[in-house]
């Protein structure tokens, strides 16, 4: 049987999308913190079919010296796709797309970091896409931000991100590849600092009216906040456990101050 033509697909039918999601539903998202031993900070993200590794090295001396900024750290995020992460083998040389994505992601992350505290240094953030299905730059960005937190770098907030856009005339959250290939598709990668809702990354391509944009940004910010919760939970899982252990270690001394009677009651 021949696959349905793109303009015959119903992208949202009875409130359900091609993969069964609701219009405002993210694909399953899983984040693991601290997955690369040698790195100062790292994270692994699985978001739908997307699989991303991010590692942070630094702040370290920026070299050669002439690239140093005496007022702030340089943030160098490098986004790369593995050759096998796309249907046809990708040329291993970084393409123009990867260079542009690296630039906008570096800029988005820089806003979240107190870069002015680390003059003359460089913070390297390496993002490697291992498997892809639309939305890899936002997956890379949330992995990078969690890795920066894991590296203990002082930050204003995490960078939370998601894709949002349009397919088959409907505004939907977190487009997958099939939706991104719709004839009227609009793709909007969006990243914010959730605390203040400041927009640190915003791109768009495809035809969109002003009203559709308003709906998209509304949905996009909601999506980012859901992602933010998963990011915090992942960090809590690594550092919250450690905190509990510290608390446990303190417990006996705390008990000592209490009268013995109460201890029995407990």
């Amino acid at each position, binding site marked *: 049987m021949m696959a349905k033509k793109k303009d015959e697909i119903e992208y949202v039918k009875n409130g359900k999308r091609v993969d069964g999601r609701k219009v405002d539903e993210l694909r399953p998202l899983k984040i693991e913190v601290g997955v690369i031993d040698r790195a100062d900070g790292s994270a692994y993200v699985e978001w739908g079919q997307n699989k991303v590794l991010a590692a942070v090295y630094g702040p370290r001396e920026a070299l050669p010296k002439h690239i140093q900024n005496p007022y702030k750290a340089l943030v160098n995020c490098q986004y790369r796709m593995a050759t096998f992460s796309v249907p046809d083998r990708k040329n291993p040389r970084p393409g123009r797309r990867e260079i542009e994505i690296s630039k906008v992601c570096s800029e988005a992350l820089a806003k979240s970091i107190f870069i002015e505290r680390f003059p003359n240094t460089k913070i390297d953030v390496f993002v490697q896409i291992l498997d892809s299905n639309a939305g890899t730059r936002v997956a890379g960005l949330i992995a990078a931000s969690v890795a920066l937190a894991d590296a203990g770098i002082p930050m204003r907030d995490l960078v939370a991100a998601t894709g949002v856009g349009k397919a088959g005339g409907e505004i939907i959250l977190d487009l997958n590849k099939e939706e991104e290939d719709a004839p009227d598709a609009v793709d909007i990668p969006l990243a914010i600092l959730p605390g203040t809702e400041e927009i640190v990354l915003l*791109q768009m391509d495809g035809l969109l009216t002003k009203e559709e944009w308003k709906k998209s940004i509304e949905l996009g910010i909601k999506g980012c906040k859901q992602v933010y919760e998963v990011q915090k939970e992942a960090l809590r899982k690594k550092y919250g456990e450690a905190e509990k252990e510290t608390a446990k270690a303190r417990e006996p001394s705390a008990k000592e101050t209490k009268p013995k009677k109460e201890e029995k009651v407990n």
Partner: protein
Amino acid sequence: MDDVIWDLRVDSAVKLIKEGKRIDGRALDEYRKIDIQNHISETAEGSAIVNLGKTRIVAGTKMILGTPYPDSQDQGTISVGAELFPIASPSFEFGPPKAAAIELSRVIDRGIRESKSIDFKDLCITEGEQVWIVFVDLYTMNDDGNFFDAGSIAALSAMLETKIPKVEDGKIVKKEYSGKLKLSKKPLLCTFAKIANKIVIDPTLVEEKAQDARFSVSTADDKHLCAFQKGEQGSFTRSEIDECIEIAFKRGKEIRKTL
């Protein structure tokens, strides 16, 4: 020494913008004077030189015969490229394009491509065999900021006058043409700088050096947005983005009328 002078210029630009004024006397939402000269190259299929204040950029189109992509057998394609040509500024140099030049190219390309103003099926000569590839190449000539918008106007002007070469037996007949390149819309890019928490359109070089963040909005026509790009290390609020969109529609409409 040069740096010190630029620092002073940046300081005074920021000071003025805080008061709602600009170094060259423009309103915050006002473009510099746009001057377009068409047909500057005989060999190009279409060409234009655009002066946006002192910023100058040249665009030329060439139509090349090619084979279609496997997944779009009945479609040709376009490719927009921009180079930060060293003739334009002491900070540009020859060599492989840096991230800034790649971003400029891709943002101008997206603005045109995503407007769907060119039906790629019109660029098909023989299905599955031969199609047109439209190359639009931009060369910076003088840098006084905002190559994004100057480049977008230049690319569009050059495309609007592009002639399609005549093809006989699968080959281009030199100096003979079969028609003009069809464009159903006039997509335009409007770029904004955020300086001292104020939004200014069409930043000059000094204003670019002063900006915390940059935002480009491409409008396909008076009703549709077709591309965004946020750049630099600062951030935008939602209301600032909406303000940019409003101004982009307004200014886009005005410029579109003159093309």
